[in-house]
C-alpha cells in the first residue's frame, strides 16, 4: 500500500481536477472563480507537500532539533497566495461590473446578449 503514503498528492490531484472542472463546466461567473480558487489551492498544497521533510519540524531554530522542513516552498506559496487573492479580488470586481452592465452573471446569457448588440 505504498500509494497510501503519498495521500497528499492524491488530494492535490483531486482538488486540481475538481477545480479545473468547475471553471470549465459552470456557467455562473462566481462559481468559476470559486473553481479557480480550488484549483490554485491544490497547487499550494503541492508546494507545501514538496517542502515537508520526514520527521522535520517547523523551520524555527531551537535547541536540540536537527531536522527542519524546507521553508522555501512556504515562502513561495505565501507569494502565490497573495497573487491568488489579488486575482480573486479583481475577478469579483469584474463580476460586479458585469452584473451592473448586463444584469446577469450567467455565461450563456452573457454570450446571448453580446451577440444581440
Amino acid at each position: 500500500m505504498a500509494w497510501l503514503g503519498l495521500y497528499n498528492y492524491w488530494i492535490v490531484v483531486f482538488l486540481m481536477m475538481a477545480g479545473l472542472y468547475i471553471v470549465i463546466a459552470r456557467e455562473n461567473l462566481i462559481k468559476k472563480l470559486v473553481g479557480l480558487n480550488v484549483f490554485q489551492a491544490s497547487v499550494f498544497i503541492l508546494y507545501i507537500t514538496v517542502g515537508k521533510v520526514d520527521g522535520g519540524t517547523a523551520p524555527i531554530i531551537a535547541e536540540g532539533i536537527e531536522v527542519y522542513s524546507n521553508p522555501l516552498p512556504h515562502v513561495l506559496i505565501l507569494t502565490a497566495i497573495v497573487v491568488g487573492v489579488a486575482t480573486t479580488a479583481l475577478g469579483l470586481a469584474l463580476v460586479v461590473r458585469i452584473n451592473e452592465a448586463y444584469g446577469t452573471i450567467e455565461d450563456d446569457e452573457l454570450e446571448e446578449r453580446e451577440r444581440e448588440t
Partner: protein
Amino acid sequence: MILPHLPALQVVVPLLAAPLCVVLRRTAVAYGLAFLASWAAFAISVLLLLQVLDSPGGVISYELGGWAPPWGIEYRIDPLNAYVMLIVAAIGAVVITYAGPSVAREIAEPQRYLFYTSYLLCLSGLLGVTVTGDAFNVFVFLEISSLSSYILISVGATPKALTAAYRYLIFGTIGATFYLIGVGLLYQMTGTLNMADLAQRVPPLAGNRTILVAFAFIAVGVGMKAALFPLHIWLPNAYAYAPSVVSAFLAATATKVAVYVLIRVYLTIFGAEFSIAGMGIGYVFMPFAIAAMFVGSAVAIFQPDVKRMLAYSSVAQIGYIVLGFGIATALGVTAGILHLFNHALMKGSMFLALGCVFYRTGAVTIESMHGLAGRMPWTTAAFVGGGLGIIGVPLTAGFISKWYLVTAALERGWWWLAALILLSSLLAIVYVWRVVEAAYFRPAPAGAPAGEAPFPMLVATWALVAANVYFGLDTRLSVGVAERAAAALMGGGP
C-alpha cells in the same frame, strides 16, 4: 556608480513610479510620471543591451539584494533577454508618448491616473519577466503584468470589455498556475529555482517522469499566455474591446514576453538537446504554429471590425514566431526571435494608427474607414506601412523575418513549409487589402469626420512605421543580436 545596478533599476523605476501616480492623483502629473518612467526604462534597456554586447561572456549577472545565486534571486541578462527587453521598453515608451490625447478621448477623467498606474505596473511586470533569472520570479512578474493588463482591458468603452477582461483573467490565471505547477515539479526534483542552476541539474534527469510532467505543464501554461493556437480564444475580444492604447501596447509586448518565456524554459532550462532532440518539442509546436498562421489569417479576413481583424492577425503572427522555434535550428530560432522583434513594431504601428482613426471618427469598422485616405492621409499611410510589413513586402522589417523563416525551412529541406509560409502571407494580403480598398477606393460618406489625429499620436505611430522600414534596410542590430541570442541558446544542441 549607477551602471552596475541597471538590471534592478529596469524593473524598479516603473514599479516605484506606479504607486506615486496613485498618491499624486492629478492626471497631468500621473501622465508626466508615466512618461518619464517609460522613457527611463527604455534608456536603461538600451544601456543594458550595449553592456551585454560588450561584456566578454555576453552575460550580466546581478545579485538582487546582495544574495549570491543560486540562493538569492539573480537577474541574468544575455543577448536574448536584452533584445526582448529593448523591444518591450521601446514599445512602452512610444505608446506612452502616444497615450495622452487617446486616453483623454477614451477614458473617464477620474480613472485616468489609475490607468497610468496600471500601465506602469504592466510595463514593470513585462520587463521583470525578461530580466529575471529565477523561474519562480517569472511567475510573480507574469502575474503582475497580467493582473494589470486585465484592468487595462476592462476600462474599454463597451461592456464587452468587461467580459473580455474576465475571460482573459480566467485563462491567464489557469495558464500561470500551470506554469507554477511545472516550476514546483522542477523544484521538487532539483531543489533550485535559479535558471542557470536548473540548466545544470535538469538535463541529467532527462526521462524522469516528474521532469516530463513539468515539461508538459509549462508548455500548456505558457502557451495560454502566449495565445498560441488553439489556446488563443481570449485574445481577439481582449484586444478588440480594450482602449486603443492598451491594444497597441499588449499586442506588441504581452504575448511576445510569453513566447520569450517559452524559449527560455525550453532552450535554457531544459536545454536544446533534451527539448529538441529528446522530446521533439519542435514537432509538438509546429502543427499548432502552422494552424495558427492559416486559421488566424483566414478568420481575420472576415472581421468587419478592423481592431478585431488585427487581433486575429496577431494570432497568426504568433504562429510565425513559434514556427521559427519549431523549426528548431539555430537559423529557425533566429527567425523566430527576429519576427518577435519585427512584429512588435509592425503590429504596434497598425494598432496605433487605428487608435488615431478611433480618435477622429469614433469607430474602427471597415465601413467607417470608407474614404479615409482623403480624410486622414497620414494615419492611413501609417496603417498601410504596418500592413506591408505584416504581408512581408521587401524593404520592411516583416520581409526580413519572413526571409529568415523561409531560409530556415529550406535549410532543413522542408520546401513544403516554405510554401506554407508564402501561402499564408497571401492571406495577409487579403485582409490588409480590405482596409486599403475601403480607405483609398471608396468614397467618403457625406459629413464624415475629417482631419488628422493630434500631433503626439501621429509622431508615435510614424516612429514605429519608420522603425519598421529602418529594420527592413539595416538589419545589423535586429539580425545581429538575434543571431547571437540563438547561437547562445542552441550552443549545446543540434
